[in-house]
């Protein structure tokens, strides 16, 4: 084997790991690697901001299930990745970040563009490495990919000093066995304990009011088929978190849609009244549970998760099962089939009760013929795209409406920053998704506040001729914060007014995209249809919507489902909201 430059070793490992695309932006400390990328047989996407590059790698990973790769230079390049890494970490997204570092002999001297990147990113990565010897480079990079995609996935960062990318070394590509041997303490548990699985089956047989509570883990392990089989076999209604949208077809009669703070009335009622909650790859986030000691107060809990640390973290469970969701559900199904029950009659009254809840308070909003309702825009996007598009959202009211009013059929169809709640995630993630799934229509449903946090990267989408549809739900507000101020701070609208915006149509044109605008309800459909016709560049649609529409229902933070707000009697009056159980 001939000697190879460190930078070329990096490319060799990327290719060995079947990387087809890299997002990033170069600088001094990583120039060697970019030099090697210049002639490498993989797509190298130049973003306009490293944060956007990180979200692109994230969106690519979420849409495809493959590892997303992002690169940045030392110092400011690497610190710009921080939000992207934290976002991916909270939502268990497989990613590898490669950052340049100042040369080894400069480390610790406050050298130009030096930052302790391993220190900064330690709590927001699954693991990270500083390469100190070129002999370790290939092995560390392979470890990074292995860690990113196995067990509970997550972002892994490898910090490589410039001199190491320049040195030459006679290396051999480490095998998977070498990687496993180098990580003696890392042993994800996939199989699930058979005794616990039997116990779970017994509980399901005995339950009168069971609910399946499905989270992002089911997406990651590819378990939608198993979730459907379990639901249909044992006639169990299914609620999904916003990380698991589409894992269970939302048009299915057993679908309860989302639960939690902005969950549906019927999902929250079902959970509150359940006697068995089967948590599948979900982590009892506070936005889901509200007040924890009143969450599913009468339910026994089965919790299936690959991460033991997620189990009994926020809530004590009765039957913990550590393992890969897909494998465990397959075993659970086998166990249930051994001793079948008259499921249909066993569930009859429970499912009837749920039907009543669904009829009493379906998801709804008041339509208008004068002003565009944000929910209406989402419904029209749903209709025009026939429910087949990939939707990526920012954070805020529009994110919740995108989760509620588009009905998802497939896993990996709805991308959003569920855990960290990162404004600015939506559009760049859509770019990554489009690169990963060029066959799909990709919509970024953005807030006017969220979009401007990463709008510079529309230029990237123009450069690569990506026909991404950006729908701005423009309420000229940091709407979600405004809603909280209306409900809980006596309508004191502090720092939420976004009346000063660029003209988004002209902005689109200036950046080489197409700009469209709708200000009346009857323009919405034609704007979306026009946008669908464009296939060689991004389109920005500016939907000027009702400024003070609220996301409902809502369980106020830290409150119990009993205190769910279904509608405020009058606008602007916090004390007039009423509680319905």
């Amino acid at each position: 084997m001939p000697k190879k430059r460190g930078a070329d070793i990096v490319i060799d490992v990327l290719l060995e790991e079947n990387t087809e695309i890299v997002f990033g932006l170069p600088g001094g400390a990583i120039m060697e690697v970019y030099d090697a990328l210049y002639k490498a047989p993989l797509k190298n996407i130049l973003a306009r901001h490293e944060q956007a590059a990180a979200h692109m790698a994230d969106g690519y990973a979420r849409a495809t299930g493959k590892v997303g790769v992002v690169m940045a230079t030392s110092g400011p390049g690497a610190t710009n990745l921080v939000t992207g890494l934290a976002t991916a970490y909270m939502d268990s997204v497989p990613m590898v970040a490669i950052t340049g570092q100042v040369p080894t002999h400069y480390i610790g001297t406050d050298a130009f563009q030096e930052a302790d990147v391993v220190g900064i990113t330690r709590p927001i990565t699954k693991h990270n490495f500083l390469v100190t010897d070129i002999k370790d480079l290939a092995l560390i990079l392979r470890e990074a990919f292995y860690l990113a995609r196995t067990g509970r996935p997550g972002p892994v960062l490898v910090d490589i000093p410039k001199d190491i990318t320049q040195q030459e070394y006679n290396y051999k590509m480490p095998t998977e066995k070498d990687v496993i041997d180098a990580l003696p303490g890392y042993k994800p548990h996939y199989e699930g304990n058979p005794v616990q699985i039997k116990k779970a089956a017994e509980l399901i047989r005995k339950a009168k009011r069971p609910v399946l509570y499905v989270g992002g883990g089911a997406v990651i392990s590819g378990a939608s088929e198993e979730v459907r089989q379990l639901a249909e076999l044992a006639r169990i209604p299914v609620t999904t978190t916003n990380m698991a949208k589409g894992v269970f077809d939302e048009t299915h009669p057993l679908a309860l849609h989302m639960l939690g703070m902005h969950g549906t009335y019927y999902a929250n009622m079902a959970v509150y009244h359940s006697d068995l909650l089967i948590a599948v790859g979900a982590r009892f986030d506070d936005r889901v549970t509200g007040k924890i000691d009143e969450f599913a107060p009468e339910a026994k809990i089965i919790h299936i998760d690959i991460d033991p640390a997620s189990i009994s973290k926020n809530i004590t469970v009765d039957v913990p099962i550590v393992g890969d969701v897909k494998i465990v559900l397959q075993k659970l199904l086998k166990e249930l089939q051994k001793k079948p029950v008259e499921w249909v009659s066993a569930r009859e009254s429970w499912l009837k009760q749920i039907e009543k809840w669904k009829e009493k308070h379906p998801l709804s909003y008041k339509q208008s013929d004068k002003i565009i309702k944000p929910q209406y825009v989402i419904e029209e996007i749903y209709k025009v795209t026939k429910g087949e598009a990939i939707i990526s959202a920012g954070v805020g009211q529009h994110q919740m409406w995108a989760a509620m009013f588009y009905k998802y059929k497939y896993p990996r169809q709805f991308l959003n920053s569920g855990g960290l709640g990162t404004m600015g995630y939506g559009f760049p993630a859509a770019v990554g998704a489009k690169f990963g799934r060029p066959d799909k229509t990709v919509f970024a449903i953005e807030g006017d506040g969220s979009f401007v946090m990463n709008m510079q990267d529309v230029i990237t989408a123009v450069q690569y001729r990506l026909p991404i549809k950006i729908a701005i739900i423009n309420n000229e507000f940091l709407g979600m914060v405004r809603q909280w101020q209306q409900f809980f701070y006596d309508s004191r609208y502090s720092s939420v007014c976004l009346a000063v915006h660029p003209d988004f149509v002209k902005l689109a044109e200036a950046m080489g995209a197409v700009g469209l605008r709708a200000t009346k309800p009857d323009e919405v459909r034609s704007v979306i249809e026009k946008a669908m016709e464009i296939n060689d560049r991004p389109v920005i649609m500016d939907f000027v919507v009702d400024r003070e529409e609220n996301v409902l229902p809502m369980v106020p933070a830290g409150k119990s489902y009993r205190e769910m707000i279904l509608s405020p009697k009058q606008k602007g009056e916090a004390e007039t909201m009423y509680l319905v159980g």
Partner: protein
Amino acid sequence: MSENIAPLKVRPQPKTEVRKHIIVVRVQHNFGVLTRITSLFAGRGYNIESLTVGKTNEPNVARITIVVEGDERIIEQIIKQLRKLVETLRVRDITDVPHIERELVLIKVHAGEDKARDEIMRLVNIFRAKIVDVSPDTYTIEVTGGSEKINAFIDLLRPFGLKDIARTGTLALVRESAKVKEKLQE
């Protein structure tokens, strides 16, 4: 509207007792591994009472002994979070396993007058401590033992006026006899 409100029900919360735990962690002795452990504690708001690190007889394996206070739920989380670290090889809570516990402490105490010097000498003998440095008005004492003994000794010296204390933190090893018992039970 009140008839519409679902009846209040509360999940039964497990009762747990807050107490001191000794957790032993074996890790790959890589660059930065100690920071990973300490920043895990800091980031999640767990309070470390003491933490000691040292090499072991195995190459590239370090042993960390952590003393931490918490209820069952917190301790269980701490153990799981420690296990989750990629470089962790083994984590064990040995609080309820028979074990030997030791700490080494150096204490500098005021000892100007003859009476005080005699009294301190007596305590040193009772506690099988050692005077390792003497100046006209201080003694520096070395003592080892479990935390109860050490704390009792320090309390007795306090009236003389403590000048400085250096503690290593707790070290602990499981008793071999306990291990044999465990094997039999498995």
